[in-house]
Protein backbone atom coordinates (compact mmCIF):
# COMPACT_ATOMS: atom_id res chain seq x y z
CA UNK A 1 0.00 0.00 0.00
CA UNK A 2 1.36 3.40 -0.87
CA UNK A 3 0.18 6.96 -1.09
CA UNK A 4 -1.07 6.57 -4.66
CA UNK A 5 -3.38 3.82 -3.50
CA UNK A 6 -4.68 5.92 -0.63
CA UNK A 7 -5.29 8.99 -2.76
CA UNK A 8 -6.43 7.14 -5.86
CA UNK A 9 -8.63 8.60 -8.56
CA UNK A 10 -11.93 7.50 -7.09
CA UNK A 11 -11.21 8.98 -3.63
CA UNK A 12 -9.96 12.28 -5.01
CA UNK A 13 -12.98 12.45 -7.31
CA UNK A 14 -15.47 11.87 -4.48
CA UNK A 15 -13.38 13.94 -2.05
CA UNK A 16 -13.30 17.00 -4.27
CA UNK A 17 -16.83 16.63 -5.65
CA UNK A 18 -18.85 14.78 -3.06
CA UNK A 19 -22.16 13.33 -4.28
CA UNK A 20 -25.38 13.75 -2.31
CA UNK A 21 -23.95 16.78 -0.53
CA UNK A 22 -27.17 18.59 0.36
CA UNK A 23 -29.90 18.82 2.92
CA UNK A 24 -32.89 17.01 1.42
CA UNK A 25 -36.34 18.59 1.61
CA UNK A 26 -37.80 15.42 3.01
CA UNK A 27 -36.12 13.35 5.64
CA UNK A 28 -37.34 11.56 8.73
CA UNK A 29 -34.10 10.62 10.41
CA UNK A 30 -30.79 12.39 10.83
CA UNK A 31 -27.64 12.50 12.96
CA UNK A 32 -24.51 14.58 13.32
CA UNK A 33 -20.92 13.44 13.58
CA UNK A 34 -17.80 15.38 14.50
CA UNK A 35 -14.10 14.69 14.68
CA UNK A 36 -12.84 17.44 17.02
CA UNK A 37 -9.22 16.52 16.36
CA UNK A 38 -9.25 17.55 12.72
CA UNK A 39 -12.54 19.41 12.54
CA UNK A 40 -14.31 16.98 10.20
CA UNK A 41 -18.07 17.42 10.40
CA UNK A 42 -20.86 15.40 8.86
CA UNK A 43 -24.66 15.54 9.13
CA UNK A 44 -26.45 12.54 7.61
CA UNK A 45 -30.11 12.77 6.52
CA UNK A 46 -32.33 9.78 5.77
CA UNK A 47 -35.76 9.20 4.36
CA UNK A 48 -36.92 5.73 5.32
CA UNK A 49 -40.22 4.67 3.74
CA UNK A 50 -42.98 2.45 5.13
CA UNK A 51 -41.25 -0.68 3.81
CA UNK A 52 -38.17 0.20 5.83
CA UNK A 53 -36.29 1.05 2.68
CA UNK A 54 -34.00 4.05 2.34
CA UNK A 55 -35.71 6.16 -0.31
CA UNK A 56 -33.33 9.09 0.09
CA UNK A 57 -30.01 9.74 1.77
CA UNK A 58 -27.75 12.78 1.71
CA UNK A 59 -25.28 14.61 3.89
CA UNK A 60 -23.86 17.98 4.72
CA UNK A 61 -20.37 18.48 6.01
CA UNK A 62 -16.77 19.43 5.53
CA UNK A 63 -13.48 17.74 6.11
CA UNK A 64 -10.51 16.00 4.58
CA UNK A 65 -10.62 14.15 1.26
CA UNK A 66 -10.92 10.77 2.97
CA UNK A 67 -13.89 11.75 5.15
CA UNK A 68 -15.75 13.47 2.31
CA UNK A 69 -15.09 10.63 -0.15
CA UNK A 70 -16.26 8.11 2.42
CA UNK A 71 -19.52 9.99 3.06
CA UNK A 72 -20.05 10.49 -0.66
CA UNK A 73 -19.50 6.82 -1.57
CA UNK A 74 -21.54 5.64 1.41
CA UNK A 75 -24.60 7.75 0.58
CA UNK A 76 -24.47 6.71 -3.06
CA UNK A 77 -24.42 3.08 -2.07
CA UNK A 78 -27.21 3.07 0.49
CA UNK A 79 -29.96 4.54 -1.66
CA UNK A 80 -32.82 2.08 -2.27
CA UNK A 81 -31.36 -0.46 0.16
CA UNK A 82 -33.38 -2.00 2.99
CA UNK A 83 -32.60 -0.89 6.52
CA UNK A 84 -31.47 -4.40 7.46
CA UNK A 85 -29.09 -4.51 4.49
CA UNK A 86 -27.70 -1.11 5.40
CA UNK A 87 -26.96 -2.21 8.95
CA UNK A 88 -25.20 -5.29 7.66
CA UNK A 89 -23.18 -3.23 5.20
CA UNK A 90 -22.07 -0.81 7.88
CA UNK A 91 -20.69 -3.64 10.00
CA UNK A 92 -19.04 -5.19 6.97
CA UNK A 93 -17.41 -1.90 5.98
CA UNK A 94 -16.17 -1.08 9.47
CA UNK A 95 -14.62 -4.52 9.82
CA UNK A 96 -13.01 -4.24 6.41
CA UNK A 97 -11.54 -0.82 7.19
CA UNK A 98 -10.07 -2.02 10.49
CA UNK A 99 -9.00 -5.61 9.96
CA UNK A 100 -10.54 -7.69 7.15
CA UNK A 101 -9.06 -7.78 3.69
CA UNK A 102 -12.40 -8.26 1.93
CA UNK A 103 -16.04 -7.32 2.15
CA UNK A 104 -18.34 -10.22 2.91
CA UNK A 105 -21.75 -8.78 2.02
CA UNK A 106 -23.54 -10.79 -0.65
CA UNK A 107 -25.81 -7.92 -1.64
CA UNK A 108 -23.09 -5.82 -3.24
CA UNK A 109 -22.58 -5.49 -6.96
CA UNK A 110 -19.01 -5.65 -8.28
CA UNK A 111 -18.78 -1.90 -8.97
CA UNK A 112 -20.14 -1.14 -5.49
CA UNK A 113 -17.51 -3.37 -3.97
CA UNK A 114 -14.78 -1.61 -5.96
CA UNK A 115 -15.92 1.77 -4.70
CA UNK A 116 -15.93 0.66 -1.09
CA UNK A 117 -12.63 -1.15 -1.37
CA UNK A 118 -11.04 2.06 -2.64
CA UNK A 119 -11.19 3.23 0.98
CA UNK A 120 -9.36 0.16 2.29
CA UNK A 121 -6.04 2.01 1.92
CA UNK A 122 -6.58 3.91 5.16
CA UNK A 123 -5.89 0.70 7.07
CA UNK A 124 -2.20 1.46 6.58
CA UNK A 125 -2.68 4.92 8.09
CA UNK A 126 -4.11 4.28 11.57
CA UNK A 127 -4.44 7.98 12.32
CA UNK A 128 -6.73 8.34 9.32
CA UNK A 129 -9.14 5.47 9.98
CA UNK A 130 -11.44 7.81 11.92
CA UNK A 131 -11.74 10.04 8.85
CA UNK A 132 -13.14 7.12 6.86
CA UNK A 133 -15.47 5.78 9.54
CA UNK A 134 -17.08 9.02 10.78
CA UNK A 135 -19.92 9.08 8.22
CA UNK A 136 -20.67 5.40 8.81
CA UNK A 137 -20.97 5.74 12.58
CA UNK A 138 -23.14 8.77 12.01
CA UNK A 139 -25.39 6.78 9.66
CA UNK A 140 -25.83 4.15 12.38
CA UNK A 141 -26.84 6.85 14.82
CA UNK A 142 -29.36 8.23 12.30
CA UNK A 143 -30.93 4.82 11.61
CA UNK A 144 -31.24 4.08 15.30
CA UNK A 145 -32.63 7.56 15.83
CA UNK A 146 -30.44 7.67 18.91
CA UNK A 147 -30.14 11.48 18.84
CA UNK A 148 -26.51 11.02 19.79
CA UNK A 149 -23.94 13.22 18.13
CA UNK A 150 -21.10 10.97 17.07
CA UNK A 151 -17.74 12.14 18.36
CA UNK A 152 -14.94 10.23 16.69
CA UNK A 153 -12.79 10.69 19.79
CA UNK A 154 -15.14 8.51 21.83
CA UNK A 155 -15.54 5.67 19.31
CA UNK A 156 -13.14 3.44 17.32
Amino acid at each position, binding site marked *: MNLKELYQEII*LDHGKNPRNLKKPDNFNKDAKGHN*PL*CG*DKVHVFLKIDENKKISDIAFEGSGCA*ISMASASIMTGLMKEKKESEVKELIIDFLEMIKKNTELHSKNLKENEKTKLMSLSGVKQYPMRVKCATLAWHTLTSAINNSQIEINSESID
Partner: protein
Amino acid sequence: MNIDNIKKQFPIFNYKIKNNDLVYLDSANSSQKPQVVVDRIYNFYTKEFANVGRSVHYLAVAATNLYENTRLLVQKYINAKDPNEIVFTKGATEAINLVANTFGQKFLKEGDEILLTELEHHSNYVPWHYLRKIKGIKIKFAEINADGEITIESIEKNITLKTKMIAITHVSNVTGAILPIKEITKLAHKKNIPILIDGCQGAPHLKLDMQDIDCDFYAISCHKMYGPTGLGILYSKKKWLDILPPYQGGGGMIKEVKKEGIIFGDLPNKYEAGTMATAQVIAFGESIKFLNQIGIENIEKYEKKLIMYGEEVLRKNNSVELIGNPKNRGSVLAFTLDGIHAHDIATILDEDGVAIRAGHHCCQILHDKLGLPATARASLGVYNTKDDIDKLNMSINKCKKIFDR
Protein backbone atom coordinates in the same frame (compact mmCIF):
# COMPACT_ATOMS: atom_id res chain seq x y z
CA MET B 1 27.41 27.39 14.55
CA ASN B 2 27.94 24.22 12.55
CA ILE B 3 24.56 22.61 11.94
CA ASP B 4 26.09 19.44 10.48
CA ASN B 5 27.90 18.85 13.75
CA ILE B 6 24.81 19.66 15.77
CA LYS B 7 22.63 17.36 13.70
CA LYS B 8 25.14 14.55 14.13
CA GLN B 9 24.50 14.67 17.87
CA PHE B 10 20.89 13.56 17.29
CA PRO B 11 20.85 9.79 16.71
CA ILE B 12 17.38 9.77 15.09
CA PHE B 13 18.82 11.36 11.95
CA ASN B 14 20.94 8.24 11.39
CA TYR B 15 17.81 6.25 10.68
CA LYS B 16 15.61 6.09 7.61
CA ILE B 17 11.98 6.84 8.33
CA LYS B 18 9.83 4.90 5.85
CA ASN B 19 12.90 4.74 3.55
CA ASN B 20 13.42 8.51 3.67
CA ASP B 21 15.83 10.84 5.39
CA LEU B 22 13.86 12.44 8.18
CA VAL B 23 12.86 16.06 7.67
CA TYR B 24 11.67 16.80 11.17
CA LEU B 25 9.52 19.92 11.29
CA ASP B 26 7.48 19.15 14.39
CA SER B 27 9.68 20.49 17.18
CA ALA B 28 6.96 22.79 18.50
CA ASN B 29 5.17 19.57 19.34
CA SER B 30 8.25 17.83 20.73
CA SER B 31 11.92 18.08 19.88
CA GLN B 32 14.28 15.21 19.09
CA LYS B 33 16.87 14.18 21.70
CA PRO B 34 20.65 14.49 21.47
CA GLN B 35 22.75 11.41 22.29
CA VAL B 36 24.03 12.94 25.56
CA VAL B 37 20.48 13.09 26.94
CA VAL B 38 19.69 9.51 25.88
CA ASP B 39 23.00 8.30 27.35
CA ARG B 40 22.43 10.14 30.61
CA ILE B 41 19.15 8.30 31.17
CA TYR B 42 20.77 4.98 30.31
CA ASN B 43 23.79 5.58 32.53
CA PHE B 44 21.76 6.78 35.47
CA TYR B 45 19.57 3.69 35.42
CA THR B 46 22.54 1.42 34.71
CA LYS B 47 25.14 2.61 37.19
CA GLU B 48 23.82 5.32 39.46
CA PHE B 49 20.20 4.72 40.27
CA ALA B 50 18.68 5.53 43.65
CA ASN B 51 15.74 7.61 44.80
CA VAL B 52 16.57 11.17 45.77
CA GLY B 53 16.18 13.13 48.98
CA ARG B 54 15.49 10.23 51.30
CA SER B 55 18.07 7.55 52.07
CA VAL B 56 21.55 8.19 53.42
CA HIS B 57 23.42 5.57 51.39
CA TYR B 58 26.03 6.55 48.82
CA LEU B 59 23.89 6.17 45.70
CA ALA B 60 21.01 8.13 47.22
CA VAL B 61 23.26 11.03 48.16
CA ALA B 62 24.93 11.05 44.74
CA ALA B 63 21.54 10.94 42.95
CA THR B 64 20.25 13.78 45.11
CA ASN B 65 23.26 15.88 44.18
CA LEU B 66 22.75 15.19 40.47
CA TYR B 67 19.06 16.04 40.75
CA GLU B 68 19.74 19.29 42.58
CA ASN B 69 22.49 20.13 40.14
CA THR B 70 19.92 20.31 37.32
CA ARG B 71 17.93 22.77 39.43
CA LEU B 72 21.03 24.97 39.62
CA LEU B 73 21.64 24.63 35.87
CA VAL B 74 18.05 25.66 35.15
CA GLN B 75 18.26 28.55 37.59
CA LYS B 76 21.31 29.85 35.82
CA TYR B 77 19.88 29.17 32.37
CA ILE B 78 16.80 31.34 32.97
CA ASN B 79 18.57 33.69 35.38
CA ALA B 80 16.25 33.12 38.33
CA LYS B 81 17.27 34.76 41.56
CA ASP B 82 17.06 31.66 43.73
CA PRO B 83 17.24 27.90 43.00
CA ASN B 84 14.15 27.46 45.15
CA GLU B 85 12.21 29.29 42.47
CA ILE B 86 12.61 26.25 40.21
CA VAL B 87 9.95 23.58 40.73
CA PHE B 88 10.02 20.33 38.75
CA THR B 89 6.64 19.15 37.47
CA LYS B 90 5.49 16.45 35.10
CA GLY B 91 5.15 18.98 32.31
CA ALA B 92 4.31 22.58 31.50
CA THR B 93 0.67 21.54 31.79
CA GLU B 94 1.17 20.54 35.41
CA ALA B 95 3.12 23.73 36.05
CA ILE B 96 0.12 25.82 34.95
CA ASN B 97 -2.32 23.58 36.80
CA LEU B 98 -0.21 24.04 39.92
CA VAL B 99 -0.55 27.83 39.74
CA ALA B 100 -4.24 27.83 38.73
CA ASN B 101 -5.09 25.41 41.50
CA THR B 102 -3.13 26.93 44.39
CA PHE B 103 -3.58 30.56 43.41
CA GLY B 104 -7.27 29.94 42.76
CA GLN B 105 -7.70 28.22 46.11
CA LYS B 106 -6.08 31.01 48.06
CA PHE B 107 -6.93 34.20 46.24
CA LEU B 108 -9.92 33.85 43.91
CA LYS B 109 -13.58 34.41 44.63
CA GLU B 110 -16.78 34.71 42.67
CA GLY B 111 -16.70 37.38 39.99
CA ASP B 112 -12.90 37.62 39.84
CA GLU B 113 -11.41 37.65 36.36
CA ILE B 114 -8.51 35.84 34.72
CA LEU B 115 -7.22 37.41 31.52
CA LEU B 116 -5.96 35.04 28.81
CA THR B 117 -5.49 35.59 25.08
CA GLU B 118 -7.08 33.98 22.03
CA LEU B 119 -3.70 32.45 21.25
CA GLU B 120 -3.59 30.20 24.30
CA HIS B 121 -2.89 26.50 24.08
CA HIS B 122 -5.55 24.43 25.85
CA SER B 123 -3.10 23.88 28.68
CA ASN B 124 -3.30 27.57 29.52
CA TYR B 125 -7.07 27.70 29.35
CA VAL B 126 -8.51 24.44 30.69
CA PRO B 127 -6.78 24.69 34.12
CA TRP B 128 -8.37 28.13 34.60
CA HIS B 129 -11.71 26.86 33.31
CA TYR B 130 -12.04 24.59 36.37
CA LEU B 131 -12.07 27.71 38.53
CA ARG B 132 -15.15 28.91 36.70
CA LYS B 133 -17.06 26.00 38.14
CA ILE B 134 -15.41 25.81 41.54
CA LYS B 135 -15.05 29.51 42.29
CA GLY B 136 -17.39 31.21 39.84
CA ILE B 137 -14.61 33.25 38.25
CA LYS B 138 -14.77 34.74 34.76
CA ILE B 139 -12.31 34.19 31.95
CA LYS B 140 -11.61 36.91 29.42
CA PHE B 141 -9.67 36.57 26.18
CA ALA B 142 -7.58 39.40 24.78
CA GLU B 143 -8.20 39.49 21.03
CA ILE B 144 -5.61 38.96 18.32
CA ASN B 145 -5.11 41.56 15.59
CA ALA B 146 -5.25 40.81 11.85
CA ASP B 147 -1.63 39.60 11.91
CA GLY B 148 -2.27 37.07 14.66
CA GLU B 149 -0.48 39.15 17.29
CA ILE B 150 -1.42 40.24 20.79
CA THR B 151 -0.70 43.89 21.42
CA ILE B 152 -0.28 45.69 24.73
CA GLU B 153 -3.47 47.59 23.90
CA SER B 154 -5.56 44.44 23.57
CA ILE B 155 -4.32 43.35 27.01
CA GLU B 156 -4.85 46.76 28.60
CA LYS B 157 -8.36 47.04 27.18
CA ASN B 158 -9.39 43.86 28.97
CA ILE B 159 -7.97 44.63 32.39
CA THR B 160 -10.57 45.58 34.99
CA LEU B 161 -10.51 46.07 38.74
CA LYS B 162 -11.52 42.43 39.01
CA THR B 163 -8.57 41.04 37.00
CA LYS B 164 -6.63 38.84 39.42
CA MET B 165 -4.22 37.11 37.04
CA ILE B 166 -2.94 37.55 33.51
CA ALA B 167 -1.89 34.26 31.91
CA ILE B 168 -0.46 34.48 28.40
CA THR B 169 1.72 32.56 26.04
CA HIS B 170 5.26 33.71 25.26
CA VAL B 171 5.09 32.58 21.63
CA SER B 172 1.99 31.39 19.76
CA ASN B 173 2.31 27.78 18.60
CA VAL B 174 0.12 28.64 15.59
CA THR B 175 0.60 32.23 14.37
CA GLY B 176 4.18 32.25 15.63
CA ALA B 177 3.73 35.68 17.24
CA ILE B 178 6.23 36.49 19.97
CA LEU B 179 4.36 38.47 22.62
CA PRO B 180 5.90 41.56 24.24
CA ILE B 181 5.98 39.78 27.59
CA LYS B 182 8.28 42.23 29.33
CA GLU B 183 6.02 45.17 28.52
CA ILE B 184 2.88 43.21 29.39
CA THR B 185 4.47 42.23 32.71
CA LYS B 186 5.25 45.86 33.43
CA LEU B 187 1.66 46.80 32.67
CA ALA B 188 0.31 43.96 34.85
CA HIS B 189 2.49 44.99 37.78
CA LYS B 190 1.51 48.62 37.41
CA LYS B 191 -2.02 47.41 38.06
CA ASN B 192 -0.90 45.05 40.80
CA ILE B 193 -1.77 41.91 38.86
CA PRO B 194 0.49 38.86 38.84
CA ILE B 195 1.37 37.36 35.46
CA LEU B 196 1.97 33.80 34.30
CA ILE B 197 3.74 33.11 31.03
CA ASP B 198 3.35 29.84 29.16
CA GLY B 199 6.90 29.49 27.90
CA CYS B 200 6.56 26.23 25.96
CA GLN B 201 7.39 27.83 22.61
CA GLY B 202 9.74 30.41 24.11
CA ALA B 203 12.20 28.51 26.30
CA PRO B 204 13.61 26.22 23.57
CA HIS B 205 14.32 29.10 21.19
CA LEU B 206 14.80 32.42 22.98
CA LYS B 207 17.17 33.73 25.60
CA LEU B 208 15.38 33.94 28.93
CA ASP B 209 16.07 36.17 31.90
CA MET B 210 13.45 35.86 34.62
CA GLN B 211 14.79 38.81 36.60
CA ASP B 212 14.69 41.02 33.54
CA ILE B 213 11.22 39.91 32.37
CA ASP B 214 10.11 40.11 36.01
CA CYS B 215 7.09 37.80 35.47
CA ASP B 216 5.64 36.00 38.47
CA PHE B 217 5.37 32.55 36.89
CA TYR B 218 6.91 30.96 33.78
CA ALA B 219 6.04 27.43 32.63
CA ILE B 220 8.55 25.32 30.69
CA SER B 221 8.16 22.05 28.80
CA CYS B 222 11.41 20.05 28.92
CA HIS B 223 10.62 17.65 26.08
CA LYS B 224 10.40 20.59 23.68
CA MET B 225 13.89 21.64 24.86
CA TYR B 226 15.80 18.55 23.70
CA GLY B 227 15.00 16.93 27.03
CA PRO B 228 13.03 13.89 28.18
CA THR B 229 9.23 13.62 28.27
CA GLY B 230 7.41 13.61 31.59
CA LEU B 231 9.16 16.70 32.84
CA GLY B 232 8.32 20.36 33.08
CA ILE B 233 9.43 23.32 35.12
CA LEU B 234 7.55 25.97 36.96
CA TYR B 235 9.54 29.09 37.59
CA SER B 236 7.82 31.09 40.30
CA LYS B 237 8.94 34.08 42.27
CA LYS B 238 9.74 32.91 45.77
CA LYS B 239 7.24 35.28 47.33
CA TRP B 240 4.45 33.25 45.71
CA LEU B 241 5.77 29.79 46.54
CA ASP B 242 6.17 30.93 50.15
CA ILE B 243 2.52 31.87 50.55
CA LEU B 244 0.63 29.60 48.14
CA PRO B 245 -0.64 26.30 49.57
CA PRO B 246 0.95 23.00 48.46
CA TYR B 247 -0.45 21.51 45.25
CA GLN B 248 -0.22 17.78 45.96
CA GLY B 249 0.33 16.02 49.26
CA GLY B 250 2.56 13.02 49.83
CA GLY B 251 6.03 11.90 50.75
CA GLY B 252 8.97 14.25 50.39
CA MET B 253 6.97 17.46 50.76
CA ILE B 254 6.47 17.39 54.53
CA LYS B 255 8.46 18.30 57.60
CA GLU B 256 6.36 16.61 60.23
CA VAL B 257 3.24 14.46 60.09
CA LYS B 258 1.09 13.89 63.17
CA LYS B 259 -2.44 12.63 63.61
CA GLU B 260 -3.46 16.14 64.61
CA GLY B 261 -1.79 17.99 61.78
CA ILE B 262 0.99 18.35 59.27
CA ILE B 263 3.84 20.78 58.82
CA PHE B 264 4.82 21.15 55.19
CA GLY B 265 8.37 21.05 53.98
CA ASP B 266 10.49 23.98 52.85
CA LEU B 267 11.00 24.98 49.25
CA PRO B 268 11.43 23.41 46.81
CA ASN B 269 10.24 20.17 48.49
CA LYS B 270 6.87 21.71 49.29
CA TYR B 271 5.88 21.41 45.62
CA GLU B 272 7.60 18.13 44.77
CA ALA B 273 5.45 15.44 46.39
CA GLY B 274 6.20 11.78 45.81
CA THR B 275 9.04 10.27 43.80
CA MET B 276 9.84 12.70 41.04
CA ALA B 277 10.93 12.01 37.46
CA THR B 278 14.48 11.55 38.73
CA ALA B 279 16.19 10.19 35.61
CA GLN B 280 14.46 12.82 33.46
CA VAL B 281 15.58 15.67 35.72
CA ILE B 282 19.17 14.44 35.71
CA ALA B 283 19.12 13.93 31.93
CA PHE B 284 17.60 17.37 31.44
CA GLY B 285 20.80 18.75 32.94
CA GLU B 286 22.47 17.46 29.77
CA SER B 287 19.91 19.27 27.60
CA ILE B 288 20.81 22.53 29.30
CA LYS B 289 24.53 21.83 28.85
CA PHE B 290 23.86 21.02 25.18
CA LEU B 291 22.05 24.34 24.73
CA ASN B 292 24.77 26.21 26.63
CA GLN B 293 27.45 24.69 24.46
CA ILE B 294 25.87 26.10 21.29
CA GLY B 295 24.68 29.22 23.07
CA ILE B 296 21.00 30.15 23.12
CA GLU B 297 21.80 33.53 21.55
CA ASN B 298 23.30 31.70 18.57
CA ILE B 299 20.30 29.39 18.35
CA GLU B 300 17.95 32.36 18.46
CA LYS B 301 19.81 34.11 15.65
CA TYR B 302 20.08 30.98 13.52
CA GLU B 303 16.43 29.98 13.87
CA LYS B 304 15.30 33.55 13.19
CA LYS B 305 17.10 33.50 9.85
CA LEU B 306 15.76 30.07 9.03
CA ILE B 307 12.15 30.88 9.88
CA MET B 308 12.39 34.04 7.77
CA TYR B 309 13.67 31.92 4.91
CA GLY B 310 10.77 29.51 5.42
CA GLU B 311 8.31 32.38 5.44
CA GLU B 312 9.78 33.74 2.22
CA VAL B 313 9.67 30.36 0.47
CA LEU B 314 6.09 29.62 1.49
CA ARG B 315 4.92 33.14 0.62
CA LYS B 316 6.30 32.67 -2.89
CA ASN B 317 4.28 29.47 -3.22
CA ASN B 318 0.94 30.70 -4.52
CA SER B 319 -1.02 27.73 -3.23
CA VAL B 320 0.07 28.34 0.37
CA GLU B 321 -1.73 30.64 2.76
CA LEU B 322 0.30 31.43 5.88
CA ILE B 323 -1.57 31.78 9.18
CA GLY B 324 -0.54 34.99 10.89
CA ASN B 325 1.90 37.64 9.84
CA PRO B 326 3.65 38.64 13.06
CA LYS B 327 6.43 41.21 12.91
CA ASN B 328 8.33 39.18 15.46
CA ARG B 329 7.99 35.49 14.58
CA GLY B 330 9.04 32.49 16.65
CA SER B 331 10.05 29.17 15.09
CA VAL B 332 6.57 28.31 13.82
CA LEU B 333 4.91 28.43 10.39
CA ALA B 334 1.27 27.37 10.19
CA PHE B 335 -0.41 27.25 6.81
CA THR B 336 -3.30 26.04 4.71
CA LEU B 337 -3.17 24.80 1.16
CA ASP B 338 -5.77 25.60 -1.51
CA GLY B 339 -8.75 23.55 -0.43
CA ILE B 340 -6.67 20.60 0.74
CA HIS B 341 -7.39 19.57 4.30
CA ALA B 342 -4.46 19.73 6.73
CA HIS B 343 -4.63 16.00 7.49
CA ASP B 344 -4.38 15.16 3.82
CA ILE B 345 -1.34 17.43 3.57
CA ALA B 346 0.34 15.82 6.58
CA THR B 347 -0.26 12.29 5.25
CA ILE B 348 1.18 13.15 1.84
CA LEU B 349 4.19 14.99 3.31
CA ASP B 350 4.82 12.04 5.61
CA GLU B 351 5.35 9.85 2.58
CA ASP B 352 8.44 11.97 1.79
CA GLY B 353 9.71 11.77 5.35
CA VAL B 354 8.56 15.33 6.06
CA ALA B 355 7.08 15.30 9.57
CA ILE B 356 4.72 18.17 10.30
CA ARG B 357 1.68 18.58 12.53
CA ALA B 358 -1.89 18.94 11.31
CA GLY B 359 -4.99 19.78 13.30
CA HIS B 360 -5.91 22.53 15.72
CA HIS B 361 -2.66 22.25 17.67
CA CYS B 362 -4.62 22.35 20.95
CA CYS B 363 -5.81 25.85 20.05
CA GLN B 364 -9.51 25.46 19.25
CA ILE B 365 -10.34 28.98 20.43
CA LEU B 366 -7.88 30.41 17.92
CA HIS B 367 -9.01 28.16 15.07
CA ASP B 368 -12.66 29.09 15.71
CA LYS B 369 -11.63 32.73 15.54
CA LEU B 370 -9.77 32.16 12.27
CA GLY B 371 -12.73 30.17 10.94
CA LEU B 372 -10.50 27.20 10.15
CA PRO B 373 -11.16 23.65 11.31
CA ALA B 374 -7.49 22.74 11.02
CA THR B 375 -4.12 23.99 9.82
CA ALA B 376 -0.82 22.40 8.89
CA ARG B 377 2.24 23.49 10.85
CA ALA B 378 5.97 23.30 10.28
CA SER B 379 8.14 24.19 13.27
CA LEU B 380 11.88 24.38 13.74
CA GLY B 381 14.52 22.98 15.99
CA VAL B 382 18.24 23.57 16.21
CA TYR B 383 18.90 20.72 13.73
CA ASN B 384 16.87 22.14 10.82
CA THR B 385 18.37 23.64 7.68
CA LYS B 386 17.31 25.50 4.55
CA ASP B 387 17.34 22.13 2.85
CA ASP B 388 14.52 20.99 5.15
CA ILE B 389 12.46 24.03 4.15
CA ASP B 390 13.09 23.31 0.47
CA LYS B 391 12.02 19.70 0.94
CA LEU B 392 8.89 20.91 2.71
CA ASN B 393 8.08 23.16 -0.20
CA MET B 394 8.72 20.40 -2.73
CA SER B 395 6.44 18.06 -0.84
CA ILE B 396 3.74 20.74 -0.68
CA ASN B 397 3.93 21.06 -4.45
CA LYS B 398 3.62 17.30 -4.81
CA CYS B 399 0.54 17.48 -2.62
CA LYS B 400 -0.96 20.05 -4.98
CA LYS B 401 -0.16 17.86 -7.94
CA ILE B 402 -1.89 14.83 -6.43
CA PHE B 403 -5.03 16.83 -5.71
CA ASP B 404 -5.03 18.68 -9.02
CA ARG B 405 -4.92 15.60 -11.17
